[in-house]
């Protein structure tokens, strides 16, 4: 539950102020807007990748702003997409002559607001494109991949888009690579306990003790199925069975791996689980590439985790490996 706040109505504003105060070496506040921009953005000739969404998912989204990653993040209230007005203002602040790529998780509210801002920016002559992250296999069946919501897969798509932008790729190319990364990324999650919005006393949802929810959304949207709690070994199989059944066609055998914690699941538990995930990946003939076991896209203090696989090829690998610096992820 959320305990540290002053007036819940000021939560977003205060968190932005605190974030910028802490990480002023990497970001600054977008003047008059609910967002932050990289200290080096915009850069002439380089595409600006703009990410964003509701708050409550840190490090998504502001934690990924910085050199080599996103040029800016638009930050909504907790679990609420930022308004089109805020997306517009942030876009104006970081738009370069090379154009802007919007990258965000596919949720109705985000789509509505980013789309409205995109139209407005295009009317003003700014070249804006959009790649929506749709990695969550629980949220729509195969064949309807574009209807899926975006969860922890955000990270790989942002990283790849940001790296392409940083090396000076054209907007067409940055868009193509982000889209390709998204098409090759799949996630599936399980949850063990709910999260509570700031100022509220009851959790958004609860999970019965001894049970878990499969395919639960990062905003506490109920899962697609409920199950009894199982040993880590079986959870690993469940995650991998689901993801492998949905593997992108002809995508090779090297996978970037992210085992993502949603908030209050312990790091130690995730490593125990990763042991079993790793064994299974090896058994499937897949080669995990620089796995990450961490909290990369959270859901306030929800208990649970998700597994993301991004099937790599050479060009995606090079972009994943490119250096970057941000509050939450630094690569060198």
């Amino acid at each position, binding site marked *: 539950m959320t305990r540290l706040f002053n007036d819940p109505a000021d939560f977003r504003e205060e968190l932005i102020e605190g974030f910028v105060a802490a990480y002023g070496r990497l970001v600054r506040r977008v003047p008059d807007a609910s967002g932050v921009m990289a200290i080096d953005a915009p850069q002439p000739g380089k595409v600006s990748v703009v990410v964003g969404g509701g708050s409550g998912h840190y490090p998504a989204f502001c934690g990924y702003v910085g050199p080599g990653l996103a040029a800016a993040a638009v930050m909504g209230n907790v679990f609420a997409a930022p308004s089109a007005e805020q997306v517009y203002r942030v876009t104006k602040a970081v738009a370069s002559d090379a154009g802007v790529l919007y990258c965000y998780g596919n949720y*109705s509210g985000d789509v509505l607001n980013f789309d409205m801002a995109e139209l407005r920016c295009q009317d003003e002559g700014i070249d804006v494109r959009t790649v929506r992250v749709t990695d969550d296999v629980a949220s729509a069946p195969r064949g309807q991949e574009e209807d899926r919501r975006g969860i922890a897969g955000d990270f790989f798509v942002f990283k790849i888009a940001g790296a392409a932008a940083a090396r000076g790729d054209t907007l067409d190319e940055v868009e193509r690579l982000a889209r390709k990364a998204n098409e090759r990324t799949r996630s599936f999650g399980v949850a063990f306990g709910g999260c509570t*919005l700031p100022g509220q006393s009851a959790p958004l949802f609860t999970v019965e003790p001894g049970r878990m929810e499969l395919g639960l959304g990062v905003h506490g949207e109920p899962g*697609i199925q409920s199950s009894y709690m199982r040993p880590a070994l079986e959870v690993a199989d469940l995650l991998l069975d689901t993801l492998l059944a949905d593997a992108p066609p002809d995508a090779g055998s090297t996978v970037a791996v992210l085992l993502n914690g949603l908030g209050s699941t312990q790091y130690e538990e995730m490593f125990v689980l990763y042991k079993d995930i790793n064994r299974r990946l090896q058994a499937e003939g897949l080669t995990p590439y620089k796995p990450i076991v961490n909290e990369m896209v959270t859901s306030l203090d929800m208990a649970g985790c998700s597994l993301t696989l991004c099937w790599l090829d050479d060009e995606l690998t090079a972009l994943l490996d490119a250096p970057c610096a941000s509050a939450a992820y630094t690569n060198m």
Partner: protein
Amino acid sequence: MSSVEGADTVVRRWLALALESISAHEDELGRLDAAAGDGDHGATMVRGLRAANAALSTATGSAGDLLSAAGGAFADAAGGASGALVGALLTTTGRTLGNGPYDTASVVKALQAALTMVMRLGRAQPGDKTLIDALKPFVDALAAQPADAPLSVAWRAALPAAMAGAEATQSMIARRGRSAKLGERSLGHPDPGAVSLVLLLQAADTVFATS
């Protein structure tokens, strides 16, 4: 009530009452949203309506201008899907209505424009379990009232259609918005956006009836 003088007061009274009514239902709307979505619909609507009322406290002009201003402030403060959609609903209504005298026919025309805009933006169809399922039946019912009926009478006559529409979302499977991902698990709960839209329409009814 068809006088230009009264129109701004009606808008102001409506949005003040809407904030009161939605605030009173904030937790309930949150719970409805949590059933299949992310639980923030009550908080989002309250945030939006507070900002809309705050904007009106400094705005001038008549109904059209005030609704546009309120819609802009609502959308920006609320965020989310409902921020964009209810904001566009207010703004489009205001723009289409303009600042001249209004009557049932001009309000129908304004709401039809707003409905079209909201459906275009959100790409939702009737039956998708959204606020459209309350809004469209209402606009249709209002359009079906005698053209010379006073707005307060026509509005009250159309209200049951909105309520029935919101009620009917209980047995729909969400296809748009966050809860779309849930498929069948969205069954059995009405759509929070449809419920809050009915509250907004009811608040207007109260204002019309007492002005």
